[in-house]
């Protein structure tokens, strides 16, 4: 039984110098057999386990994680949450997630610091203007809040942006989704882990999957560094390493894994109270609660698992940031890092059954998976429990690469996820 976090528990623990807080989750050894095993203890994997236990009464399940939970892309992304995607299928998927975000802290009894500070996307040329207007209309038809802003309105919403017509890529307008925003990424992993653990889910860290055992066309279990675990259902949520796991099962996926970089500045006083993204010049920025500017750069164009990217990618992003925000010209960057993102040819994710019975993949989120964490977990749990996709993730099946029914979000959405 978990003690509830509240202002009273905070006061009570303050009186004992915070030395008696209960462990947030256990550290169990793996059992011999589970009803389902989730491979990957990031936000999506932990959310999947949480919804399997909560909505589908599957409590005899485990999450196995090669490192520590939330130590992969969950802890490396720039925490942007939005749902203003162009196509109906994507809009349904991401807005489902956004609706869960809105009540998530209460549901998990864990403050994920979800902040609906708005996300603004900038247009820098006529094609951008047309695309963003079209996307605004598409969003509204799908019930997603979106407004188109003129250059003056952009300046009013975020005064530090340089809207001079003389810059290399002038700001011609933008879109705004007010319900969008950011959340504390680590808290999302920890909150889901704590809530899943409370329902009996075993979270097994430092446990790397080495093989997937098959009996003909069905899954029988997984080989791990902590021994063999028998299970009939394996849900793989391994982000950049999805192809590595797929290769163990003799599958090929339409993915390429590439380094994506981000960086943060030294902390400063509040200066930007929203998230501003710009696809054309590939620069996006927000400010964390600690005061750091959080800046997202782009991917390298070659396959690599090194978790470090090329210097010129960061340089290009900072060039654009400085032109748009001259006020940042003397900021110093504190940290820079890379994460490995698994990119699909159509820049849309895969939440799908496979040709092997009992083997499910949740991958291909590419550069923008964080925003979908709760929705992805919910829909993937549905897919695993029922052996059928939910109607919201039916379009994101693996078979779309055979049928040709792609969800082509490349360039259509605000692709700098």
């Amino acid at each position, binding site marked *: 039984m978990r003690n509830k976090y509240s202002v009273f528990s905070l006061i009570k623990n303050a009186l004992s110098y915070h030395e008696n807080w209960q462990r947030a989750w256990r550290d169990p050894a793996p059992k011999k057999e589970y009803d389902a095993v989730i491979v990957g203890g990031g936000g999506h994997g932990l959310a999947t386990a949480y919804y399997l236990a909560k909505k589908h009464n599957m409590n005899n399940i485990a999450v196995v994680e090669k490192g520590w939970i939330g130590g992969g892309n969950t802890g490396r992304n720039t925490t942007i949450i939005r749902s203003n995607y162009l196509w109906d299928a994507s809009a349904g998927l991401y807005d489902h997630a956004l609706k869960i975000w809105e009540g998530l802290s209460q549901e998990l009894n864990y403050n994920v610091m979800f902040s609906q500070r708005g996300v603004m996307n900038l247009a820098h040329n006529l094609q951008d203007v047309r695309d963003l207007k079209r996307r605004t209309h598409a969003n509204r038809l799908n019930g997603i809040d979106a407004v188109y802003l003129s250059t003056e309105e952009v300046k009013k919403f975020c005064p530090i942006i340089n809207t001079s017509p003389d810059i290399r890529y002038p700001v011609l307008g933008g879109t705004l989704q007010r319900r969008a925003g950011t959340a504390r990424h680590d808290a999302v992993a920890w909150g889901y882990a704590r809530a899943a653990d409370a329902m009996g889910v075993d979270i097994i860290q430092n446990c790397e999957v080495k093989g997937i055992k098959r009996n003909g066309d069905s899954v029988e279990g997984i080989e791990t560094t902590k021994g063999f675990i028998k299970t009939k259902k394996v849900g793989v949520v391994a982000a950049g390493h999805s*192809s590595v796991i797929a290769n163990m099962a003799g599958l090929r996926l*339409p993915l390429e894994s590439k380094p994506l970089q981000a960086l943060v500045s030294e902390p400063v006083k509040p200066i930007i109270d929203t998230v501003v993204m710009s696809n054309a010049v590939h620069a996006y920025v927000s400010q964390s609660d600690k005061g750091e500017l959080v800046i997202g750069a782009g991917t390298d164009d070659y396959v690599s698992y090194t978790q470090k990217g090329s210097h010129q990618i960061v340089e290009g992003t900072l060039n654009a940031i400085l032109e748009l925000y001259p006020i940042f010209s003397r900021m110093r960057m504190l940290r820079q890092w890379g994460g490995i993102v698994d990119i699909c040819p159509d820049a849309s994710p895969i939440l799908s059954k496979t040709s092997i019975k009992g083997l499910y993949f949740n991958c291909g989120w590419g550069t923008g998976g964080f925003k979908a964490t709760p929705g992805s977990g919910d829909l993937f749990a549905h897919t695993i429990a029922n052996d059928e996709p939910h109607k919201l993730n039916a379009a994101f099946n693996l078979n779309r690469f*055979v049928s040709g029914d792609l969800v082509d979000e490349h360039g259509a959405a605000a692709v700098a996820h």
Partner: protein
Amino acid sequence: MFLINCPYCGERDQQEFKAGGEAHIDRPKQPTELSDDEWAEYLFMRKNIKGVQFERWNHAHGCRKWFNMVRDTSNDEIKAIYKMGEKPPAQ
């Protein structure tokens, strides 16, 4: 970020080059005979190996010629470079 020894120009910075993806995927000889599954394999499915991978690269900001590379994707170490049409080195 690393240096690439272009077989035509010599050692240059990686940013002069464009990665062209997995190498030795043969274009179908009889495209009209292909099933949808075979098209999906050819067009979309990739090995995406963590480890030694065979790739195509193009010296986009140099001689603009294509060539092949053997590279370890876990540490970006280049194992071999060979011209288009040449036999890949034994792994």
